[in-house]
Every structure is written in structure tokens, then in C-alpha cells.
């Protein structure tokens, strides 16, 4: 699976090669040092040769210095490679998400996308860095150290051929048994955090219903569960260190015994024995390193999978495949739905929209009324191709919307969504999303039409007031009006207001509508609303029910002929007078 992620190294590929190379050099030098030490003792001391001692000693020190340089260099290269890799990965993920259509977005929750882009990438980065260093160092050290040991004294080195497999077997057993227990522990950990999160979000509910005791018990249960599963997992894992120590000490004792006997018999020298003892540490440590890397790779598997999920997502909606010159601009704001059916998921039963046939003339003002879930929002989302139809087609300006480039289409259709999202930055910057090149006059005009100008100028910095994330300092109604102004600045052929005046009081609603009708004379306007008062003056009103169009007509016509419309109107009028 990691193989799929290799291309992301990109320009950092050479660091990914240099790092292991430097490590190889460092490791070889480190393995040679005990060997030289053995020589100093066996040759230097026994022959009383000071020059020899000094030369070899100097060589050892020089090698250590060199190893230091290589080691530091490897650290730098590995850092560069891994962080650069992470950068490329993050960028690609972000760009992929930008390509997502609404239906692609629906498949991932916002929170999980954010985690994938941040935590999961960091996890992968760390594993890559670990691999670049340890995955090369460990085997080389293991092989070289064992090799030198064999070279020095083949018979004694047999001890290693027993110790290493024993340690390896022990570690594998521990890991394979402990790992599933850790999975369980992590699940309990997540569960615990979920209880906390829910309580944080719903603290008022908990207090209002006096359920603190209940929640405390719930938490206590989860905490107990976590404690127990953590204990079970750790009980196994703690065998690692003692096992390592036991094997290491046993090996040392064996080496001293057998080696000591060989020295006495004259088949081995004391310095060589010391060298062997040094190699014990090097060899067994490298085995531990392999285990560490292995564990990290397994742990990171989840993160890698999640990243690949996003990268592998098939994009639903792409712009027209025609080349630029062939795609045209939108001629006018006429819209027609020809036998359109649509569903969000895969199942065909109970489609959200079925057999919609509708025609809207350019410049008309159309209202859409219907109960919750009748399909009003879905209907209008099909016009700028935020979703694609399952059956039938949607035409804009007489041309199938799929034949326009996405850019062209969306520049001509402005939609003010139900969730009014503004971004960090000044009010002016937010409005300029509608038109980067808008002049201050155009901006002011749009804001006056959206009944936003007054409250904007009431702020000390006016249009240059800075908004927090999500436009935090504004009330719901103010946000809505800004979003309407932003859409107006696009100067679109079609403007869709999806329940956009729900948070403003009826007075402001009326002000906005009259300003809009003046400003948008030639623009097709579609208004989705709950209040009949908002759409009463439309050229025609569409009544939707359960994914189908129930009736189309003017206010007076519908009052006379449509039952649903009349019921809604009367229930809303009851409060008046």
C-alpha cells in the first residue's frame, strides 16, 4: 500500500535516496569500531606498541567523527524527504477535495476530511521518516555485526544464531497477541471521548433534565472499560523489555563463558572477547529496531487507508469535455426541466425528485413552496450542476447544463444556500468572492439591495470590518443578507434564493424583495421559501410535494385551485389580524 504513495516524493526523491545511503555509511563505521578496539587490545597492548595504539585509536576516533557527520546528514535528509513528502501529499489531497462535487462531499463527513488532511498525513510522514532511517540501519547493522563476529570467531558467533531467533520469536509472539488487545483499547478510548464530546455539546440539555448523575455513570462505565482493556493490553506488552534484557544478559554470560574457555585454550584473544560483547548490544538492538518499525507501519496502516480513500474517489461531476472554443456562454436565463428524476443514493425507490417537467422564462420571478423534504432545494441544486440528474435533463438558456464548462455555468447561476457561510477576512473580501474586480460602488449597490449596507456602515470599520471564522461576529440575519449581496455581485443570469430570508423578520424580508425585484429586472429569480408572504408577488409559484410538482400558477390561481397551497396560506395567515 505504501507503494501507491511513492509518487508523492516528487522533487524530494533524492533525499529519500541520500538518507539511507548516509545511514549505510554510518552503520558500517559504527560496526567497525569495536573491531578496531579489539585490535588495540590484542595487538597494541600485547606487543607494547604505543604507535600502533595511537594510530588505531586515532582511526577509531576519526571513524566516530565521520559516523557522526553521516548520522546527522542522514537525519537532515530524512527530515527533508519526509516533510516534503507530506507537503506534496497534503497538497494533492486538498486539490482532490476541491474537485469534489457535492455528492462526493456527502460521502465523507467534514470532520473526517479534516482529520485525513492533517493527522493522517502527519502519521504517514512520521512512518516514512522512521522507515527511511531504521529500515536501512537495522538490517545492515544486524548483518554486518554478525558478519564481523563470524569473521573474528566463527564458533563463538553461533551464540548469536541462537539468541537472535529466540528474541525474534519472543517479540513476534508478544506483538501478535498484544496488537488485537490494543485495537480494542483504542475503540474504548474513542467511545470515552465520544461521551465527553456529546456532553460538551449538549451540556444545557444535561443540566435542563438534571441528568448529570446519569451521564457520570455513563462516563464511569466507559472509563472503567478503558482502564480494564488498557490493563489487558499492557500486561502483554511489558514482557518486551525484560525479554530483551534476559536474552541480552544470557548471551553475554554465554559469550564470557565460552569465550573465556577459548581464551584459556588459546583459540581466542581477550580483545576479541570484548569486541564480541559490544556486538551483542548492536545485534540485539537492531532486532528491536525492526520490531519498532514494523509496529509503526501497522499502526499507520489505518491512516494510509483513509488517505487513499480520498485520493481514489471518483469525481462525479466534471465540466464539459468539449474544448474551450466550442463551449459557449450562457445566452439567457431561461430554465427547463425535461422529465427530470433524481436521487441522492443508489436506491431507485422513493426518488427525491420524480418526473419534473418545468419551464421558466428568462427574467421571470418564480417562487417554490412545499413542505420539508418535498424536494425544493434539490430541484434548484440541479441547475448549476451541484448534483447531476439521474434521468432527463436540465436546460439553461436552451442548452443542456452538462454542455457548459463548469466555470461558465456557475458564473451565470448564483445560488444563496441555506447555510450561510462567510470566511475569515474583511466584509469587502467576502463580497468580492462574487466578483474579484467589483468596484466599491458596485459593492455598495449590491449591499443596499440586500438591505445590508446600513448594518455594515454601522460597524466602526464598515466594509473593512474583519470577520472571524464563519463570519462569527454577525447575527444570522446579517450573515444571510451579506450572502445575498455576494451573490448579487456575480451579476448572474439566474439567481436562486434557497430559504434565504428565513432568519430576517418580515419587514426586512419585504425590503429585500422589493429591492431585488427592482435590481434584478432581467434576471431569472427563483425564491424558495416557507412563508407564502415571501413568494406572493412572484410571476408564478410552484407547489412541490413529495418530490413532484403539485401545481404551478400565480398566487390567486393557486388559492383557488390548489388544496395544499390554500392550507399553508391559511395556517400562516392565522396569526395576522
Amino acid at each position, binding site marked *: 500500500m505504501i507503494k501507491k504513495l511513492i509518487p508523492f516524493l516528487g522533487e524530494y526523491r533524492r533525499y529519500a535516496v541520500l538518507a539511507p545511503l548516509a545511514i549505510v555509511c554510518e552503520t558500517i563505521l559504527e560496526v567497525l*569500531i569495536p573491531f578496531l578496539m579489539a585490535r588495540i*587490545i590484542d595487538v*597494541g597492548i600485547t606487543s607494547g606498541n604505543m604507535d600502533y*595504539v595511537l594510530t588505531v*585509536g586515532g582511526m577509531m*576516533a576519526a571513524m*566516530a*567523527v565521520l*559516523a557522526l557527520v553521516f*548520522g*546527522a546528514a542522514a*537525519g*537532515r535528509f*530524512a*527530515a527533508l524527504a519526509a516533510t516534503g513528502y*507530506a*507537503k506534496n501529499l497534503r497538497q494533492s489531497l*486538498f486539490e482532490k477535495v*476541491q474537485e469534489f462535487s457535492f455528492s462526493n*462531499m456527502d460521502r465523507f463527513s*467534514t470532520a473526517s476530511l*479534516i482529520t485525513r488532511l492533517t493527522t493522517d498525513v*502527519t*502519521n504517514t510522514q512520521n512512518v516514512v521518516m522512521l522507515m527511511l532511517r531504521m529500515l536501512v*540501519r537495522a538490517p545492515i547493522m544486524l548483518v554486518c555485526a554478525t558478519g564481523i563476529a563470524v569473521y573474528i570467531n566463527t564458533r563463538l558467533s553461533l551464540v548469536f544464531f541462537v539468541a537472535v531467533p529466540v528474541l525474534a520469536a519472543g*517479540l513476534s509472539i508478544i506483538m501478535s497477541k498484544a496488537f488485537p488487545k490494543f485495537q480494542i483499547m*483504542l475503540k474504548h478510548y474513542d467511545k470515552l*471521548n465520544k461521551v465527553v464530546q*456529546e*456532553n*460538551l455539546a449538549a*451540556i*444545557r440539555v444535561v*443540566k*435542563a*433534565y*438534571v441528568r448529570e448523575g446519569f451521564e*457520570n455513570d455513563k462516563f*464511569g462505565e466507559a472509563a472503567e472499560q478503558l482502564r480494564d482493556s488498557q490493563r489487558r493490553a*499492557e500486561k502483554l*506488552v*511489558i*514482557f*518486551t*523489555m525484560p525479554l*530483551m*534484557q534476559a536474552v541480552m*544478559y*544470557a548471551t553475554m554470560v554465554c559469550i*564470557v563463558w565460552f569465550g573465556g574457555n577459548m*581464551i584459556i585454550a588459546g583459540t581466542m584473544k581477550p580483545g576479541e*572477547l570484548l569486541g564480541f560483547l559490544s556486538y551483542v548490544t548492536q545485534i540485539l538492538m537492531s532486532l528491536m529496531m525492526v*520490531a519498532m518499525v514494523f509496529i509503526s507501519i501497522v499502526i*499507520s496502516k489505518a491512516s494510509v487507508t483513509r488517505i487513499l480513500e480520498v485520493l481514489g474517489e471518483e469525481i462525479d461531476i466534471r465540466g464539459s469535455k468539449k474544448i474551450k472554443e466550442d463551449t459557449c456562454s450562457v445566452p439567457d436565463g431561461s430554465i427547463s426541466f425535461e422529465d427530470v428524476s433524481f436521487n441522492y443514493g443508489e436506491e431507485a425507490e422513493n426518488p427525491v425528485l420524480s418526473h419534473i417537467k418545468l419551464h421558466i422564462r428568462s427574467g421571470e420571478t418564480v417562487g417554490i413552496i412545499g413542505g420539508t423534504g418535498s424536494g425544493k432545494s434539490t430541484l434548484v441544486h440541479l441547475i*448549476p450542476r*451541484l448534483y447531476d440528474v439521474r434521468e432527463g435533463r436540465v436546460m439553461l438558456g436552451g442548452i443542456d447544463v452538462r454542455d457548459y464548462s*463548469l466555470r461558465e455555468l456557475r458564473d451565470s447561476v448564483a445560488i444563496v*444556500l441555506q447555510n450561510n457561510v462567510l470566511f475569515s477576512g474583511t466584509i469587502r473580501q467576502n463580497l468580492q468572492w462574487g466578483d474579484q474586480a467589483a468596484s466599491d460602488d458596485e459593492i455598495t449597490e449590491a449591499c443596499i439591495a440586500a438591505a445590508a449596507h446600513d448594518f455594515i456602515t454601522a460597524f466602526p470599520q464598515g466594509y473593512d470590518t474583519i470577520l472571524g*471564522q464563519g463570519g462569527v461576529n454577525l447575527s444570522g440575519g446579517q450573515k444571510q443578507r451579506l450572502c445575498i449581496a*455576494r451573490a448579487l455581485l456575480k451579476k448572474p443570469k439566474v439567481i436562486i434564493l434557497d430559504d434565504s430570508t428565513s432568519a430576517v423578520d418580515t419587514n426586512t424580508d419585504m425590503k429585500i424583495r422589493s429591492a431585488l425585484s427592482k435590481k434584478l429586472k432581467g434576471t431569472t429569480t427563483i425564491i424558495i421559501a416557507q412563508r407564502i408572504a415571501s413568494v406572493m408577488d412572484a410571476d408564478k409559484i410552484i407547489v412541490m410535494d413529495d418530490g413532484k410538482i403539485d401545481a404551478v400558477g400565480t398566487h390567486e390561481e393557486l388559492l383557488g385551485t390548489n388544496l395544499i397551497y390554500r392550507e399553508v396560506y391559511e395556517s400562516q395567515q392565522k396569526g395576522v389580524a
Partner: protein
Amino acid sequence: MAAAKAEQGQRPGPGFGPRPGGGPGQRHHGAMAKPQSAGKALKRILAYMKGERLLLILVFLAIIASSAAGVAGTYFLKPLINEYIVPFIGKENPDLSGFAGVLFLMGSIYLVGALSTYAYSRLMINIATGTLYRIRRDLFTHMEKLPVSYFDNHTHGELMSHFTNDTDTLREMMSQGFPQLISSSITVFGAFVMMLYLSPLLTLLVVVMLFVMLVLVTGIGKRISAYFKRQQEALGKVNGYVEEMIEGQKVVKVFSHEAVVTKGFEELNLELCKAASSANTFANILMPVMSNLSYILYAIIAASGAAMAISGRMDLGTIASFLQYTRSFSHPVTMMAQLFNSVLNALAGAERIFRLIDEQPENDDGDVILVNCPDPTGMWAWKRPNENGAFDYIRLRGDVRFENVTFSYDGEKNVLEDVSFYAKPGQKIALVGSTGAGKTTITNLLNRFYDITRGRIIYDGIPLDRMSKNDLRLSLGMVLQDTHLFTGTVMENIRYGNICASNEDVIKAAKLANAHSFIKHLPEG
């Protein structure tokens, strides 16, 4: 040998054995914080270990035994070589019983060491998880008692991090950081003492190198902290940007702003990359530098020792032992410096936890409580203590009066000004007004989520501030603006309103709220 865990993101990981290439230096800590009073924090943590304090002493002893065994065993090389190997070289049929005996002793000491390692780890599990469990429960219980205003003033992220980050680092400190710090210190100290005993002259060289190593450890350590702090900031910015853009993805699409948004991300991403690569560079080079410095020392010691041996001032066994001690030195020294910092960091986290636990809970000094009079009527009434020491009973009817109520959330701007109204039992009162008029505030006040600054609220003739908050809330049924449901079945969620409700009661309520039909349409009802 030091053991450290492989940390992944925000969750605890398995503490598998030694981490090659560097323990805490390799971990991705955020900005390392220093606690205001480490001693106090430690004392409080100890307080949570009540009952297990004896075990703690055992743990301490076992750690000492484990490190001491390692140090002691290494010493054995000297007598083994000097008295049991070298003298016998070339001898025919030497008497190896002494050799075997001493070796056996060495092996036994090592065995005790390994067993002690297991012992303290095993004991520590129960202590650490038990303590953590108690701290977590305290944390949660206290959090539930906090007034609503605390939640207004602290972000969810902040509170969550007490439960995740802070408790995680605490656990790590208890089960690994602290024991390793002690064992490393003992190993270093023990090895140093032994080296001094073996050869004061060579130890001098060690001291010089030790000095160099410490200087480097602190120098690199500081840079690691600084760059990791910068990395965290850059990460925070990327996080914030990603969150904003993904939350507003639909707007981005509607305005075809994808290219602009991607460009913005590229800049932040690059910044993060730069900070991360510096931070990781320093973290990566720590171990290679330390380890190879120790090899340089090794070379110097080998040469010097050999020189002294040639001039007859040192024997082979001493050199052997000394060299082994030198090798076992560098790792613990590096670990100590890093562990010290991470222990401090964990204590700072503990301080944050304790600060929340010490936070003033919602005070409830109301003395009027709600009681159910089982006979004869089964009605609910307020039980109020009167001047004579007895109780008055006032029927629960639902009469609410606001008299000249003035209230402000932040103490500056008044959200309610001199508000008065009444609601008689059984009446349906509607509150309408534009956004920000204060409607939700009225319900907040009625629940006593906040207390008023001026005026009175009277409920069934009793001033609201005299009522016990819990009983007051039990008497009210609230449907809040933000709908929050909990993980669990639909039945459980509805039953939240009355835990003693039977299934029939739950279904009846659902029918009344017009929810029964859509519940029936769900796959599992």
C-alpha cells in the same frame, strides 16, 4: 535501555520496548510547557494514588534493583578477566569452578535485574491505569457541575484536550517517563561511581566528554522545542484554513473559487513544510550525535587505557569493564535530559486538569426542593423550610412571574432591561421578537443557567434563587433551540426526559410530538 512509546496523533499507542534513534526527542510534542509548581502537581497526583502508595515504594525499589543489576553485572568483567581468564591462559586442565561460580553470580544478578524490570512494569500498570481512571472520573464529574457560563467562555477543543492530550501525557509520564528517568539517573550515577572506582584518571576524560554531551543535548533540545512550537503554529493555521474551506466547500463550488482557495492552501502548506523539516531535522540528529560522541569517547578510552596498560599501570579486566561502562553511558544521559522536559510537560498538563477540577462549580444554595406527595393525591409540591424550623408545602402549579428583571451576560451590555410579565398556570405564552431580542435568554434564566442581576423571578410564589437548581430543572420541560441527541437508541433518547418512563409512556410521548410515524419508518424503529 530506555523505553518510549510510538505516539501516533492523538491516541495512546502501545509502549513497545526501546525506541531506537531517540525517545522523547523523536516524539512530536507540541510546545513544551513548564508547570507553575511541579511539586504541588506531583503531590496531587500522589494523592490520587491512595491505597497504592505501598506498591509505589515497591516499584521504586524494583527500578533501583533493575538499574543497579545492570551496573553491577558489568563490573564482573574485571574480576572475571583478571582472575579467572588471563591467569589460566595456556594452562593445561585449569580449575574452572571459580570461573563458573563468579559467572553464575553475574548471571543471577542479571536475572534479578530482568525480573525487577518486569516487576516494576507490571506493578506500574495497575497504579498508572488506576490513578488515571480516578483522575478522569473526577475531571468529568467536576465538569458536569460547572456553570453554563464556563462552557461559554471555553472552547470545546480546550475542554476536550484535558481529556485527551493532558491525560495521555500524564499516563505516559507515570508508566514510562518517570520510571525511565529514575532508572536512567541510577544507571548514569552508578556507572559513574564504578568508573571512578575503576580508574579515576580515565573518569576524568569521561567527565570532559560528559560536559560536551550535556552542552549539546541542551543546545539541540532548545532548538527542538523552538522549532516544534513553530511547527504547531503552522499546523494550527493549516488546520484552521482546511476546516474553514471544507466547511464552506459548497460556497467555494458555487463561486468557482477552487483555484484561489488551493493557492491559499499552497502557501500555508509550504510554511508548515519548512517548520516541520527544521523541527524534525533537529529531532533526528540528536541520537546520532550523542551516540557517536560516545564512540569518540570509547576510542579515546581504548587508546588511553591501552597506553596505561602498556606502561603497566592498568590491567585488562579494568579496561574491559571501563569500556563497557562507557558504552552504556550515552543513551541514559541523552534520555535524562529529554525525559526531564517531558515530565515537566506532563506536569503542566496535570496542572491544567487540576485547575478545572478546582474550578468553582455551579453553586446551588437553594433550599426549596421538589417532593412528590404519594398520598393521597400523588401531586408534586415545593417543600420550603420556614422560620419555625418546619416545612411549608406549596403545590407545583406552574405560575411564573418576571418582575423588573435586568440581566447581562458579560456584565457590560444589558440583554434584558426591566422585563416584567406573568404566566398563569395552564396558559400558553408566546415570546416573539427579532434576533437578539432576548427570547432565549428568558428561558436560560428560568432554568437558572445564569442568575439575574436585578429584579425577581417568582415561580409558584417562591423566588427562583431560593430553589434548588436540580429540583427547579426537574420541574421544567425544555426543548432547546439547538437539537442535541445522544448516541443510543431512539427509545433511550426520548427516555432521557424521564428515566423511569415505561416503553408505553415513551411511545405515547412520541405520538404527541408527531414523531411516532417517522420513527416507525426508520429501519430499526
